[in-house]
């Protein structure tokens, strides 16, 4: 029997409110939210690894695999159903992670970070040299159907928005349960003291292997949704700056709650789009100052605002 706590009720409510809001918000806002929530899914994976003490600068690898699975599924294999494509992307990413994980789980700290970055850049290099896949220009993604139903443009965007909200909300719920399960606690224990975990008779390597696979699946889902929403994919998805953005958002939100990546991803999207609008020449500087501000004043991320309030009440 699953114990239902306040966070879960909150998450479910937030998901329902977001889903319902899809009918009222203007299209541009729905699009920004779709992209932000898709990104939040990837960031969930990054946070998952951070909770186990690992920082990945190469999550773009699985993000890109998810995106290309959706694009290539439509182009070369004639699969056009969004849920099938997303599932295919997630499976492809997990399969790849199952191989790479054997190597990656041997490394920690900066070595893990650098190696993950290197692997994603290998995929970038391969894609850039593949002129059949459009090299750096990438290619367009065919519009997909949803469980066999096809929609016209307006309804298509709404359907995709709903799917993204449900996946982001559902994914967060699952991760919340995982974080509070024995496995989740063990990951935190590995972060705190890996040797002690070994003395408990557990293998940190295989625990981290599971963590790596789960993070890859989330990244691929995010990548697939991004590809469907944008309608175009290119190798930039696996470039290191893309992976850096995920780490940026993870730090922005903090790692203490599964809702944090979602809040941070949405805030990041808004800060960026308005920074571009108001200061087109210096928008990167604004983003930089925001991160600096968060690190200096809220070292545990945005979510510490919520936490500190709770503590003050108690």
């Amino acid at each position: 029997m699953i114990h239902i706590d306040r966070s879960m009720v909150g998450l479910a409510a937030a998901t329902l409110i977001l889903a319902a809001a899809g009918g009222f918000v203007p299209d541009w806002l729905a699009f920004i939210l779709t992209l932000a929530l898709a990104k939040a899914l990837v960031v969930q994976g990054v946070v998952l690894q951070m909770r186990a003490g690992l920082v990945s600068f190469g999550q773009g690898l699985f993000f890109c695999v998810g995106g290309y699975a959706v694009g290539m599924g439509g182009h070369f294999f004639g699969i056009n159903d969004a849920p099938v494509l997303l599932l295919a992307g997630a499976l492809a990413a997990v399969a790849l992670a199952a191989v790479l994980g054997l190597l990656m789980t041997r490394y920690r700290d900066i070595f893990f970070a650098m190696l993950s970055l290197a692997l994603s850049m290998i995929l970038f290099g391969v894609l850039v040299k593949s002129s059949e896949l459009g090299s750096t220009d990438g290619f367009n993604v065919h519009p997909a159907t949803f469980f066999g139903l096809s929609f016209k443009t307006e309804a298509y965007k709404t359907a995709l928005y709903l799917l993204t909200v449900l996946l982001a909300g559902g994914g967060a719920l699952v991760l919340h349960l995982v974080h509070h399960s024995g496995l989740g606690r063990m990951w935190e224990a590995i972060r705190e003291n890996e040797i002690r975990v070994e003395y408990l008779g557990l293998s940190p390597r295989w625990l981290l292997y599971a963590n790596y696979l789960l993070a890859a699946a989330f990244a691929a889902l995010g990548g697939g949704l991004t590809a469907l929403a944008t309608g175009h994919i290119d190798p930039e998805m696996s470039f290191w700056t893309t992976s850096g953005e995920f780490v940026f958002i993870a730090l922005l939100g903090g790692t203490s709650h599964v809702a944090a990546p979602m809040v941070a991803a949405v805030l990041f999207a808004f800060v960026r789009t308005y920074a571009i609008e108001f200061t087109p020449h210096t928008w990167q500087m604004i983003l930089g100052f925001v991160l600096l501000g968060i690190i200096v004043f809220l070292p545990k991320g945005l979510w510490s605002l919520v936490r500190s309030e709770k503590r003050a009440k108690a």
Partner: protein
Amino acid sequence: MKNIVQKTLAVMAAAGTLAAMPVHAAENGKFRVGVVTFLSGAAAGPFGVPSINGAKVLVDALNQGKVPAPYNVKGINGLEIETVVIDENGGATKQVEEFRNLAERHKVDAVVGYISSGDCLAISPVAEELGVPTVFFDCGTSRLFEENKTPRYVFRTGLDAAIDNIAAARYLVDSGRKVEAIAGIQQNYAWGQDSWGDFTAAIKQLKPGVKVTTEQFPKIFQGQYGAEISALALSNPDVIHSSFWGGDMEALVLQGNARGLFDKRSAILTCGESALDRFKGQASNGLIVGGRGPFGAFAPKNTLSDWFHAAYMAKNEIEPTYPAYKMVQAILGLKAAAEKAAAGKAGTVPGKDALVGAFSNLTFESVSGSVNMSRAKGHQALQGIAYGEYHYDAKTKKASLKNIKAYAGECVTPPDGTTAGEWIKAGFPGAKCGG
């Protein structure tokens, strides 16, 4: 600490209010245009900044009604032009997001922009979906209208990159140079790969039996080309072709020149014109440069180009290069189409469908001469292109172009319905080169 947290919250709340604030629709009696170009990153210096400077000069002059005829009507159709400037840096996903913002939040009447081919390919279906008249001013991918076969809202006033390379091959052969062995150095991404593919195919057609001695594909923004220059020099080709642009191109020219790479052989740079004033004598005389069309130093002398050159020089320190001309051409095309669509009803914004209807197959005057929107079902400009040799006068410290040879659009552009690759392989059927 508590205080700071409260302040942060207050700022965030303010930001939230700002985000929720609806931006006024373009019903303020102005013609609103989204302008998208690189304002940061490696493409900003050589392309983005000259193009945005060109746009500023033109839009200011149009709003004051100071542009010579036939563009002496104030703004666009008598309405002041209001621009929303967006940075193109950051990848195609972000550009799609920003394009949707332009269309739906800013409610722009049209969008002009995009240098990166990847961005153009990603924006094209979105522009068609949202029904926003969109003018691509620079991106050169041949795939644009191969993928968007029935364009309605998407236009391109710049030329296809295949034309650069077909004309480059023709220039080399027509100028009677020794072309028996060729070598290439290209940035390893879509632009470089496509350029080299088109160029080698074209030169093999024009000069059967030509040998490729080496092809170098260093990664983009590498900056140091010591090894590649050695490989090129050792393979001893008659001609070196490069589609390098920006800082990479300048680095290649500087490093290659210092090592005598360009002595005793021809070298052709398809994007060379954008650095004409920046070489400052550090490039070897006789280097063949292109400007991706009749732009920049290749622009013909006419009232509009003379006016633009003077107006640009009054506000900027260096000469306008081809990206500035191409941007101006895109905006002039939009203005011509909008005014034709308004059909004499000054002071109104024409309907989007009327605008795109008027734009397709339009012939308009530009800083590069007459532009014919006659390809890709009336959505792609057909224009000539020219190549010339770089010459630097140490006394006047001015660079100039010699031995310029221009090719008509019909000579170097594949007919509709044929891809550039197919057309070159078939031996340029129907090309009209006028001797």
